[in-house]
C-alpha cells in the first residue's frame, strides 16, 4: 500500500497556517455580520443568519464538487491517493450540508414560525442531498477496502454531483404540484456593505472547509502510516 503524501517528513504542513487563516477570517466575518452590516429593513435581525447559512450551503456544494473531481481523477488516473481525498471532501460536504439544514431550519423558524418549510427550495435540495450522501457512507462502509470500493465510491460521487442540478430542477417543478405555498420570499436585496459581509463570510467558510479537509486528510494519512508501521513491527 502506497503511503502517498505529497509532503515529505521534513516539509512543514500547511494545515496550522490554514487553520489560523480560517480562524481569522471567521472572526472578521462574524464582526462584519453583527456590527458592520446594516439591519435589513424587511426581515430584521434574522436576516443576519443568512450571512452564514448561504455561504455554508455554497461551501457544501463546493465540497461535493471537489469530491466528484477527485473521484473522476481516481477513475482516470487510478492513483489510490484520490480515493481518500474524495472521501474526505464528501465527508466535509456532508458536515457543511448538515449545518446548512440546521441553520436553515432556525432561519425558517425565526422568519416564518415553522422549523421546516417545503417551500424553501434550497432546504429541500439539501435534504435530498443529505439522504444521498448519507447513503454514500452506508455504501462505503459495507464494502471491503480496496480498489473496488474506491471505484464504486468515485462513481457514486459523480452521480451526486449530477443529481444536484437535476434535483434542483425537480424541486422547482414540484412547487406547482405540491401544496401551493403561502410563504413567498424575495431574495434579500443586498446593499453594498451587506454584499461585502456576505463575501467575507463566504471566503471564511471556504477557507474553513479547506482547512478542515486538509486536517482530516492529515489525520487519515497518519492512521494509515501507523497501521503500516504496526504491520511491519509485529
Amino acid at each position: 500500500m502506497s503511503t502517498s503524501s505529497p509532503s515529505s517528513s521534513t516539509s512543514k504542513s500547511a494545515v496550522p497556517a490554514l487553520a489560523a487563516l480560517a480562524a481569522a477570517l471567521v472572526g472578521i466575518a462574524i464582526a462584519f455580520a453583527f456590527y458592520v452590516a446594516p439591519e435589513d429593513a424587511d426581515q430584521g435581525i434574522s436576516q443576519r443568519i443568512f450571512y452564514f447559512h448561504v455561504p455554508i450551503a455554497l461551501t457544501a456544494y463546493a465540497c461535493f464538487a471537489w469530491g466528484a473531481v477527485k473521484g473522476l481523477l481516481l477513475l482516470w488516473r487510478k492513483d489510490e491517493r484520490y480515493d481518500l481525498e474524495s472521501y474526505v471532501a464528501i465527508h466535509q460536504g456532508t458536515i457543511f450540508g448538515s449545518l446548512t439544514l440546521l441553520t436553515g431550519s432556525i432561519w425558517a423558524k425565526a422568519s416564518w414560525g415553522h422549523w421546516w418549510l417545503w417551500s424553501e427550495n434550497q432546504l429541500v435540495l439539501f435534504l435530498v442531498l443529505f439522504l444521498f450522501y448519507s447513503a454514500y457512507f452506508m455504501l462505503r462502509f459495507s464494502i471491503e477496502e480496496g480498489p473496488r470500493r474506491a471505484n464504486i465510491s468515485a462513481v457514486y460521487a459523480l452521480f451526486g454531483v449530477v443529481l444536484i442540478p437535476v434535483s434542483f430542477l425537480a424541486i422547482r417543478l414540484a412547487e406547482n404540484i405540491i401544496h401551493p405555498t403561502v410563504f413567498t420570499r424575495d431574495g434579500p436585496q443586498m446593499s453594498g456593505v451587506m454584499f461585502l459581509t456576505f463575501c467575507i463570510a463566504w471566503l471564511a467558510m471556504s477557507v474553513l472547509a479547506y482547512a478542515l479537509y486538509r486536517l482530516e486528510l492529515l489525520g487519515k494519512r497518519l492512521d494509515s502510516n501507523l497501521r503500516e508501521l504496526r504491520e511491519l513491527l509485529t
Partner: protein
Amino acid sequence: MSYLGDVATLARKDLRLELRARDTLPAMLLFVVSTLVVFHFALPEGADEVAAQGLLWVALVFTALLGLARAWAPERESGALEGLVLAPCDRSAIWLGKAAAVFAFLSSVELVALPAFALFFGSVDAATVAGVVLASIGICAVGTLLAAMAAASRTRELVLPLLFLPLAIPLVVGGVGASVSSEPARYLAFLALYDAIFSILCWASFEYVVSE
C-alpha cells in the same frame, strides 16, 4: 459480435432465466397489487383522487426496488459476474442488457398495475401512462447500476433502497407532475431529460462499478 448484438443476447438470457424460474415476476405483481390495496386503507376518508395519484408512484418505486434487489441475483448465485466482466464484450453492454431486461419485467408489472390502479382509485390518463414509461426507463437505468454497486456490499438488501430512493425523487416528481398537473408536457420533458442524463452517466461509469 456487434455491441447491440451483445446487449440483446444478455437481455434475452435474463428473460429466458426468468421465464423458467418464474420467481421475481409473480412476486412483483403480487406486491404491487397488495400495495395498492394497502393504500386504499391508508388513505383517510375524503382524501382526494389527486393524493391517490401520488400513491401510484410510491407503489411503482417500491415494486421496482423489489425487482432490482433480484436483478443481479442470477450472476451472483452462479458467480457469473466475474465471467461476464472478463468476456470480450464492452462492459457497458452488460449494464444495458441487464437494464433492458429489468425494464421488460417492470413494464410487465406496470401492465397489470395501471389497470388495477384505475380499478381501485379512478382513471389513468395518457399523460400518466407516458410518465410511467419514461420514469421506468430512468428507474431501470439507474437502479441496475446501483444494484451492481449494492452487490459489492456486505449489506446489499439494506443498502440498495438507501442508494435508490434519493435518485428516485426527481422521477417521482416528474411522474406525479405528469399525472396531476395541467401542463404534463413539462414534467414529461423533465423525465426525458433525467433519463438521458443518467443513462449516459450509467453507460459511461458501469465498467468502473464492476471492475477492480
